[in-house]
């Protein structure tokens, strides 16, 4: 007994930082440790696939992916914005949505005047942009008609109330982190500017019922809320931790009235089973999980290219297909769906879209039309580099001078 007491006394005190001996273990290093880091595996994979897909352009995309990403500052309209905007303009940042609108307006004026305008655009990757160029041939009536049509298409594009500041091409300055204003809301949200394009492509009209199928971490959802056009927004994500993060983002940016259950609902279920309410939404944003090219090249943690996640990675296109089908089924007839990924891979982009259209027509009898978004290229070519080889949809390529993306987006309209 006394001995036991003595032992008890002699036992070292266990502080909060001390680990028990039973928790100590010897790290195995010989066989189980991965020899090649996941980022390297990812790079090897991309080198193999994308050099075929992009050819000569791959090196410039590659260096973009491996270098520091550019951000944009999405201004929080619900906070006090004047000061932030002033500061950002002092930094020489520009609201790229506003700028592109000004430019297209100026273009229209020139067209209306009938004079042949100077071609001010240059240094862009896209070739198909020709149809958008304002050089009107003197004798070609057909071309003129077609041209005015595209301009009309541009002007019909409804610019939402989103202010998003970026630095111009070649400028590598950074934004300061967001601060709280007097109401306790953050002034701006830093995100990849290319992630705004799917939201803009969704073209939400006032009074729309909107569904964001894979919402976390919340950048796109926040942009949707900033528009203040949705009658009701449903944000869904599979994992609890991610919806938790979504909650936090929204709470620190949006006033409580707008987060009320009447206007915003955050759910946490599998997007593939979104059969509970079929054909109810006007707009659906399907921002699917993908190989997240930029992230897998830089972060070792949670990398999808880990050996143990090979199955998961290989089944991604399937998951994406199912999610897109679920999204399309959730949309009303005449409703719009935007499918987006942040991957360059064709397998996850065009093939998924094409396959989804096919499957819906055959299995569900639902007709879907792929909408043309090529006017986006003309609008935002000063900010982004677009890829011109996509069969459907648009792809933003990373480039050192404008290091946004990669971001693929494609708009689909449900007809029946």
């Amino acid at each position, binding site marked *: 007994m006394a001995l036991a007491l003595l032992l008890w006394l002699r036992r070292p005190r266990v502080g909060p930082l001390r680990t028990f001996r039973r928790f100590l273990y010897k790290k195995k290093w010989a066989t189980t440790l991965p020899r090649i880091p996941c980022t390297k595996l990812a790079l090897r994979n991309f*080198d193999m696939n994308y*050099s075929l897909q992009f050819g*000569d352009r*791959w*090196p*410039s995309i*590659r*260096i973009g992916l*491996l*270098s*520091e990403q550019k*951000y944009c500052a999405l201004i929080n*309209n*619900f*906070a*006090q*914005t004047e000061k932030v905007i002033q500061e950002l303009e002092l930094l020489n940042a520009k609201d790229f949505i506003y700028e592109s609108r000004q430019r297209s307006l100026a273009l229209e004026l020139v067209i209306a005047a009938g004079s042949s305008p100077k071609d001010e655009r240059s240094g862009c990757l896209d070739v198909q942009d020709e149809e958008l160029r304002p050089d009107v041939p003197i004798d070609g009536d057909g071309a003129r008609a077609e041209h005015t049509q595209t301009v009309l298409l541009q002007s019909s594009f409804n610019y939402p109330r989103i202010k998003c500041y970026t630095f111009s091409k*070649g400028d*590598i300055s950074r934004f300061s*982190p*967001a601060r709280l204003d*007097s*109401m*306790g*809301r953050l002034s701006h949200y*830093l*995100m*990849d500017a290319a*992630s705004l394009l799917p939201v803009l492509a969704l073209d939400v009209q006032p009074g729309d019922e909107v569904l964001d199928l894979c919402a*976390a*971490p919340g*950048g796109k959802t926040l942009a949707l809320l900033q528009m203040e056009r949705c009658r009701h927004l449903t944000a869904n994500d599979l*994992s*609890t*931790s*991610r919806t*938790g*993060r979504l*909650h*936090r983002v929204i*709470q*620190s940016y949006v*006033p*409580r*009235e707008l987060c009320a259950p009447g206007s915003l609902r955050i759910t946490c279920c599998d997007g593939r089973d979104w059969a509970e309410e079929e054909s109810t939404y006007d707009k659906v944003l399907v*921002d699917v*999980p*993908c190989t*997240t090219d*930029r*992230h897998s090249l830089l*972060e070792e*943690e*949670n990398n999808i290219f880990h050996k143990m996640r090979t199955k998961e990675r290989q089944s991604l296109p399937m998951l994406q297909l199912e999610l897109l089908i679920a999204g399309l089924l959730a949309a009303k007839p005449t409703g719009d769906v935007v499918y987006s990924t*942040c991957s360059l891979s064709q397998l996850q982009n065009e093939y998924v879209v094409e396959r989804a259209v096919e499957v819906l027509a055959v299995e569900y009898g639902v007709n879907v039309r792929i909408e043309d978004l090529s006017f986006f290229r003309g609008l935002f070519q000063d900010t982004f580099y677009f890829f011109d080889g996509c069969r459907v949809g648009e792809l933003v390529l990373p*480039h*050192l*001078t404008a290091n946004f993306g990669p971001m693929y987006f494609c708009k689909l309209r449900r007809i029946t």
Partner: protein
Amino acid sequence: MRLVLPYILQPAVSLLRLCPRRHAACKFGSTASAEGPEGLFSVAGNVRPDWKLQDQFRLSIAKHSRQTSIKDAELDKAAESFHEMGFTNNQIIQLFKIQPVSSAPTLQQRLAIVSELLLLNLSVDKTLKVLKGSPDVLKVMTKTLKDRVEHLRRLGLGEGNLQKVISQCPTILTLPRKSVDATVRLLKMRCLFSAQQVTEILFTTPNILHEVHQDLEFKFQYAYFRMGIKQQEAVKSRLFRNTITEIKNRHIFLERLGKYQTPDKKGQTLICNPKFKHVFGVSEDIFLTKIAHASAEEYQVFKMLLAREEAEEEDNTEGTSGDEETASDYEESDEEEEDNAEGTSGDEETDSDYDDSDDETPERVEP
């Protein structure tokens, strides 16, 4: 007048015996050897400088020099001697204008050094260029200068090469023997270059003698370990001509473009690396168009980005890792962050506190 002569003549006479008379510009030697000390005067008489010229000499020398009392006769003599060495009036004025930073050399010293340089088989133009490039050479004693040159010869810089090196990098003559030795030792012992390679390095890039040893060694180690360049290749590619930033810029630029891979221990790579001399031995334009196939804009942006990355890396290694909070603000990528449930609920509570305070001031919600 005769009294002041000897000190001007003295180096000239000593020069006589050494001068190999290989170039025509060294009139001094040839005339002097033909006619002896008396001949000097006959030549000098032919080119007797007018007073205007002398004033100019005086002006050019007085501008910097603190010795105010240079006798006319001395100046005359010096000018004459320079004439005889093959300098024109204009060149003499230029020569007098060259002044080392702190101390002004005497005329005698100037004359001695110039003749020493001419002895090295440098032409008049080159001599002037060398002195312009490093005025401090004028401060060096003749004997030391000879010694240093001899040392360079011993390092393998033979005739022709030596002259090239000196005219390329005139400051090499101001370097003490010890520091040259130290650099050579560094190259041999720490970087494992052979003696022949060291000679070639000195010949192609004499500027490394001025570099800080640590930087030099780091440059080599970067090339050797990070890029997999062997010694022989390093010599051939003129690696040391570039600064370490330039080396890093070009290497990492190529690496991220996917056009360069560090060879493994067997020297194998998956892709074909470009030759090092095409990477480092060429101008930026050629590098971009021929090797990297990238635009100049991209490279400029990349250089800025890389500089920032490296600066931040240094900051991090110094131990200021306080930017986790800013990093969380930058997150938009779809990483699957597995927060534990407790953490999220805790955050929600704090956030709801915020919202309560919001409710008290509802008028200011709409901006």
